[in-house]
């Protein structure tokens, strides 16, 4: 019986490890990034942003969406790869992670993309900037897709949003 139970525990875990995973993809300076799609609840046109005193450059301010006040984070600036151009047509993703809600902008939002089972490889060791937050890499015909650990990224962004 014990051997049978041990095998039954293994099955769901093995199945989960082999399942295809859906990601939300975007581009920052020609590089493709993704986060788990379950973190992104909506993509909207960026509402008017209200700048706040004493915040770092990557925190553009706050915006109102359906009555909710949401901080706006420029991922390009946070990852140290430049500045996302904000225009009237800029779109933003709403990320909901561990009770925090953030609007994030990038150079280009691509949308949903499925990475096939076993297609995600471990990230390269070490590195700064984006590499610090990459949890996996997929090599595809459209180029390398770097998967970001969004909870860690937002937690770090919040820690770096030091009041002044």
């Amino acid at each position, binding site marked *: 019986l014990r051997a049978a139970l041990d095998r039954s525990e293994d099955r769901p875990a093995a199945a989960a490890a082999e399942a295809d995973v859906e990601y939300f993809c975007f581009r920052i300076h020609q590089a493709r990034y993704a986060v788990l799609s379950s973190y992104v609840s909506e993509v909207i046109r960026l509402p008017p942003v*209200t700048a706040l005193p004493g915040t770092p450059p990557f925190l553009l301010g706050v915006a109102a969406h359906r009555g909710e006040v949401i901080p706006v984070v420029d991922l390009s600036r946070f990852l140290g790869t430049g500045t996302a151009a904000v225009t009237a047509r800029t779109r933003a993703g709403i990320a909901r992670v561990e009770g925090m809600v953030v609007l994030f902008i990038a150079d280009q939002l691509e949308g949903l993309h499925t990475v096939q089972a076993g297609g995600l490889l471990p990230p390269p060791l070490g590195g700064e900037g984006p590499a610090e937050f990459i949890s996996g890499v997929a090599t595809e015909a459209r180029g390398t897709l770097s998967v970001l650990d969004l909870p860690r990224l937002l937690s770090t962004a919040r820690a770096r949003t030091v009041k002044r």
Partner: protein
Amino acid sequence: MSMMGEAGVDVLLFEAGGFRLGADAGAVVRVASHRPEDPQAATFGAVRSGGREIVARGRGGTTQAVSVDTILGVRRVKPSDLRPLPRFLLGRVHPAVIGFAVLEETLVALVELSEVEGAEAEPG
């Protein structure tokens, strides 16, 4: 916000350091011109045109002056249009920022004038 009621709260809107901000109008003693010989008032950053200051009631009967660029006027804001700081910003934004008002689908940061860094208390 001291003038809170069913009808709302009166908010003094102003610009300072490139930011559009609001403060409890009930806490404002006066709006005055800032003369060069006056003591340095607190600011939210580099004041651009300057020349105006809001004198507000602080703690313990003191008053504090905050240098601003432009006074935009007073608006009554309904309680349903007031918002607290989102969780991401709790403890991570300028200590004077206490929440937001939704005005025509845009947000105005609401500040406690007595919490502006550098605000010097004077006997009331």
